[in-house]
């Protein structure tokens, strides 16, 4: 050390110079750190930082698109966008941050005017000053929201709810952005070769939505929109919170009145004239005008203005596959289809926004034109649909419990007090009707009752949702699973002949009960009700057509037994019932994702419009006794009215299966079921006999007239229409409900589901398949039969049948 010092002194003899050199070297060493940091920022991170800086040079503004129309098969508009006005408010005003910003400015100015420096204040003093300054602005906002609600004709709570919705959606978007950033950072961190737990980045990402206005009121009528337009430019007379030189405040800060569209459902409610002269004799009358609310509501669906996380996840702003902005992504204030076609065809109907991208540096504007949503044409006939829905109006009495619905059975004993009760007379009944065009497979009508209108939805959503008995939101035509009962008998017959288990020439004795030693089990309905047999009544054993006409259980128990579990299983799978078959996907839904969590989320999302699948036990789970029972449509088996109408349509086509369609442009699958013609002939003969011949179960009903007399009348009364029909009375489990006669307590009731499925046509050619089910209606022929008859009359009235 000493030697080195000596050498340094030799070269630089003066201490001042030596220390000056030391100083210069120290300064040079100090300069290394900033130079390295310069290099890091410009070279290592330069690209990223430049990209960040340039983000602000692009200003995007969106142009709204219009949603596609939904139109029926005759070109009637069922849902359409009309020009209207939207009211949007800046996000900072919605959150109240506007008041904070104003208060900060005013507080600082006030202090500086008093000669007090803001930064020298303690945090407590600042908080007090800010709180005092915020008060007038908070009051201003409070008054604004009251005026806002009053102008919109809504309650304060409704406006608050909409604000909360917007804030939640923006916060969720922010959380998504944070998550994406975290993933990007993690990828970078791992790519850098790091191991272990990555550092936590607590930076809050500010997304564009936090700087934008959000729609709080959508689709306003002109007068309301213009009222807001006038308020938009109005200001207070005084300056802001008494600040010297302050500007007057806008009455409604951050308010924007935007041109937009409003979704309208022109045929949401229709007036229908119902001719009751063809009704059952006790209900006959003249023309009745019926107001039908919510025509085809379950089919069309509606729009909801609240977006859920799943919606944002399903269609995020940045498409994860392409990395580009998806112009159809959801933004706060957007509406989304809920239920029906509005939900199922959301992506097609929705369209794509236009975007005007202004590059601030060059002044160049890129314009991506908006793309209007695509129209969707349905196979539904709205007028026919309205006519069928009108039949369920309780004032007509067709679908309410009537005295003639009940059949007094000879072995009926006085019911025990604890036994489930029958539905009281006058109780309104629910149900579903599906009408399919045999030739095309088009669904002409798909009715689920009760229905609900858009108006009822807006004002009574909670009470409708809470009604557990009516389950109004449930689309019974595709979502309610019913045991089919006797309506499956023609299908079972066809399968038995097809499989060689039964020859059309064979006759089978109706013995009243299937097992000789068990007279209380596996009984024929005629034995159960009248202690006789079909063989005794007809005077001979039954062939297939006789069995269908009389709906003989013993014959079809035998068919079930002969077909066995495998055979009886295949009867139904070929019509889309059960997990082993392709479900009826009339809404055109995509396959469910494989991943369990996503699968569950998607199932939940598509609840109102799911596929019609039904329940069917696997062959291995079907015992011999089950197979026998399934021969008459009971046992481990359920399906939907859509299945029933479609299966009968296949019979009408002589065994050609066509997937039913709801969209006019839907592709259909057609294939033959390989049912022999002789099987079809015998089945149709039986169905025709059922509706038109003596002993047919859907031929004649004995009505109890109000004067106490009885009157017999045919179930089907259209003079020019040929009918092939089968009724079914499907046993189901008791249910609980409160019909108001008890002290608010639910009572247990028991009744069967009433089915009637028929083919209607001219001459020997069935043209339309009609499936009608009345929930807990009881006798299929007595309850559902007259409804099916009126559906035929509706087809006549709409010109489908002569």
């Amino acid at each position, binding site marked *: 050390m000493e030697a080195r010092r000596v050498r340094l002194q030799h070269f630089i003899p003066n201490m001042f110079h030596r220390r000056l050199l030391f100083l210069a070297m120290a300064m040079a060493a100090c300069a290394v750190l900033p130079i390295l940091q310069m290099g890091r920022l410009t070279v290592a991170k330069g690209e990223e930082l*430049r990209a960040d800086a340039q983000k602000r040079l692009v200003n995007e503004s969106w142009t709204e698109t219009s949603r596609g129309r939904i139109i029926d098969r005759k070109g009637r508009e069922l849902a359409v966008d009309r020009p209207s006005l939207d009211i949007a408010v800046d996000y900072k005003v919605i959150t109240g941050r506007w008041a904070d910003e104003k208060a900060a400015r005013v507080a600082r100015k006030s202090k500086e005017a008093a000669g007090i420096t803001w930064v020298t204040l303690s945090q407590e003093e600042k908080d007090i000053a800010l709180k005092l300054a915020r008060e007038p602005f908070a009051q201003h906002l409070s008054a604004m929201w009251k005026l806002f609600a009053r102008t919109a004709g809504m309650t304060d709570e409704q406006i608050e709810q909409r604000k909360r919705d917007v804030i939640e959606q923006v916060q969720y978007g922010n959380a998504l952005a944070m998550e994406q950033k975290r993933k990007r950072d993690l990828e970078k961190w791992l790519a850098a070769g790091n191991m272990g737990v990555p550092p936590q980045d607590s930076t809050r990402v500010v997304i564009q939505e936090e700087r934008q206005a959000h729609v709080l009121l959508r689709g306003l009528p002109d007068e309301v929109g213009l009222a807001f337009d006038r308020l938009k430019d109005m200001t207070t007379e005084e300056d802001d919170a008494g600040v010297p030189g302050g500007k007057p405040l806008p009455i409604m800060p951050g308010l924007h009145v935007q041109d937009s569209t409003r979704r309208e459902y022109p045929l949401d409610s229709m007036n229908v004239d119902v001719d009751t002269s063809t009704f059952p004799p006790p209900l006959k009358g003249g023309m009745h005008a019926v107001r039908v609310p919510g025509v085809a509501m379950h089919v069309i669906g509606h729009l909801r203005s609240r977006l859920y996380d799943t919606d944002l996840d399903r269609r995020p702003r940045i498409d994860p596959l392409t990395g580009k902005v998806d112009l159809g992504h959801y933004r706060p204030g957007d509406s989304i289809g809920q239920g029906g076609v509005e939900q199922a065809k959301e992506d097609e109907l929705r369209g794509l926004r236009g975007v005007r991208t202004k590059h601030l540096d060059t002044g160049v504007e890129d314009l991506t034109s908006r793309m209007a949503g695509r129209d969707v044409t349905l196979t539904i006939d709205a007028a026919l649909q309205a006519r069928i829905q009108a039949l369920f109006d309780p004032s007509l009495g067709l679908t309410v419990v009537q005295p003639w619905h009940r059949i007094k059975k000879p072995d009926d004993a006085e019911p025990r007090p604890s036994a489930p009760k029958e539905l009281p007379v006058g109780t309104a009944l629910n149900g579903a009707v599906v009408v399919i065009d045999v030739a095309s497979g088009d669904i002409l009508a798909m009715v689920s009752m009760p229905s609900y209108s858009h108006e009822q939805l807006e004002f009574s959503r909670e009470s409708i949702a809470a009604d557990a008995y009516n389950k109004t939101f449930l689309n019974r035509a595709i979502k309610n699973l019913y045991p089919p009962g006797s309506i499956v008998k023609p299908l079972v017959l066809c399968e038995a002949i097809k499989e060689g288990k039964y020859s059309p020439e064979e006759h089978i004795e109706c013995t009243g009960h299937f097992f000789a030693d068990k007279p209380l089990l596996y009984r024929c309905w005629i034995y159960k009700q009248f202690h006789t047999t079909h063989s005794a009544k007809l005077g001979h054993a039954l062939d297939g057509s006789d069995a269908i006409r009389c709906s003989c259980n013993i014959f079809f128990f035998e068919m079930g037994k002969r077909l066995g579990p495998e055979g009886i299983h295949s009867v139904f799978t070929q019509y889309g019932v059960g997990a082993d078959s392709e479900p009826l996907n009339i809404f055109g839904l995509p396959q469910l994702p494989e991943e369990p969590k996503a699968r569950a989320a998607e199932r939940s999302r598509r609840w109102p419009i799911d596929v019609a699948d039904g329940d069917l036990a696997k062959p291995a789970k079907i015992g011999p006794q089950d197979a026998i029972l399934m021969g008459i449509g009971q046992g481990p088996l359920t399906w939907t009215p859509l299945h029933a109408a479609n299966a009968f349509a296949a019979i009408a086509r002589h065994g050609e299966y066509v997937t039913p369609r709801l969209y006019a442009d839907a592709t259909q699958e057609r294939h033959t079921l390989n049912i022999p013609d002789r099987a079809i002939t015998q089945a149709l003969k039986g169905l025709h006999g059922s509706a038109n011949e003596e002993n047919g179960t859907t031929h004649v009903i004995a009505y109890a007239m109000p004067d106490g007399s009885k009157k017999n009348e045919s179930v089907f009364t259209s003079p020019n229409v040929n009918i092939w029909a089968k009724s079914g009375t499907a046993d189901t489990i008791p249910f609980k409900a409160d019909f108001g006669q008890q002290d608010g307590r639910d009572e247990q009731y028991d009744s069967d589901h009433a089915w009637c499925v028929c083919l209607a046509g001219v001459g020997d050619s069935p043209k339309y398949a009609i499936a009608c089910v009345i929930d807990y209606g009881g006798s299929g022929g007595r309850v559902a039969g007259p409804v099916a008859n009126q559906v035929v009359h509706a087809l006549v009235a709409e010109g489908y049948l002569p």
Partner: protein
Amino acid sequence: MTRSLVRSIIGHDLTPWHGAWLCVLGGLGLSLLGVYAIDLGTVDVTPKPGDMVSMSGLVLRQVIYMLVGLLAAGLIAVPHVRWIRMIAWPLMWLLIGLLVFLLIPFVPVWLVHPRNGARAWIELGPIDFQPGELAKVAFVLVMADYLRYRQNHRTIPGLVVPALIAFIPAALITLQPDLGMALLFAPAIFAMLLVAGAKIKHMVAVVVIAACAVPASYPFMKAHQKARIVGLIQMVKDPNAGADGINFQSKQAQMLAGAGEWWGVSDARTRILHKYNELPERHNDMILAVIMTRFGLMGGLAMIGLYGVWFLGAFITAATCKDAFGQLVVVGLTAILFAQTFINVGMVLGILPIIGLTLPFVSYGGTSMVTVWLMTGLIFSVGMRRLSGAYWLSRPTFEFDDQPKYGQARPQPKIAPALSRRRTG
């Protein structure tokens, strides 16, 4: 008689070519760079060909400040440094008086208007005067005068008086509060004591004590000062911490500086980037971010190079000067300028907390500009008179009895080491 008086004031044997020219050259380059950067940061768009040259009011003022600074540098370089030395103490007392005046609470706002929370400016109509800026220079002059022929600063008690001389103006400036400005006194006194022969071990001890004292001073800091330190610590842990709050300015500065990448972006794009990316004080404390956006890493290095030219000139001047006062003045001013530059660059680049300190020559500001040119003028004055004949025969500066004589190796101690240590301690 007149000629004699002039010679007495100006001195004789002036050297026309000397190292201080480098300071002038560096200063001019930096000043012009600053004027352009202020224009970039304050005018939105580049004028089209044929348009009148568009300059913001700030640019025009800065040009005027630069010219005034050059004039002041020229004027201060005229009298011999001994005259400067003679007015050092009165100037210091005057400035201390002004610093006290700034802190008087009931001084009307039109005369002392707080800016960014600091009572540092006296409003004199069209001119705003910041006494703290001149106090730095005055302090260097006073300290140089104090240290030039002393030896007692080579003892611990001997360091007390220099510390007191620095403490009074630094404390007054801290109370404004302008912590950044006050901090500049520390490197100045350190550098001057170092070259004046203070013992290394004493200096190390002082630095260690000061380093330990810094955390202890935290509780006495203002809330915003604490927030900035906390913000910097957060930013070290997490680069994006406080990006919307306390670190907003720093993050924006880093983003815009980094956006320049290697060679920077065009003039128009720089203006656009700075227009739409809000950077508070971009024409002032944050001017480096503008320069780096425009010229990238190369621009940043070129700017550091210009400072290097200035420092090189100052060091050559100090090294060639034979006068202790002149040497100490140059070293003191150089240390101040270096510290100010280092802190400003560090805070723009995110390695130091933001404490409100301008970039010498480059940032907008009249007092700042005039002061750095005054400093340059003083160095020029010293440089011009480096070979002043009166000093040729004098003993070389800062030679002490316990040090080896000029040009000689240190004599080996002939007595016991313990005694030797005591004698030389």
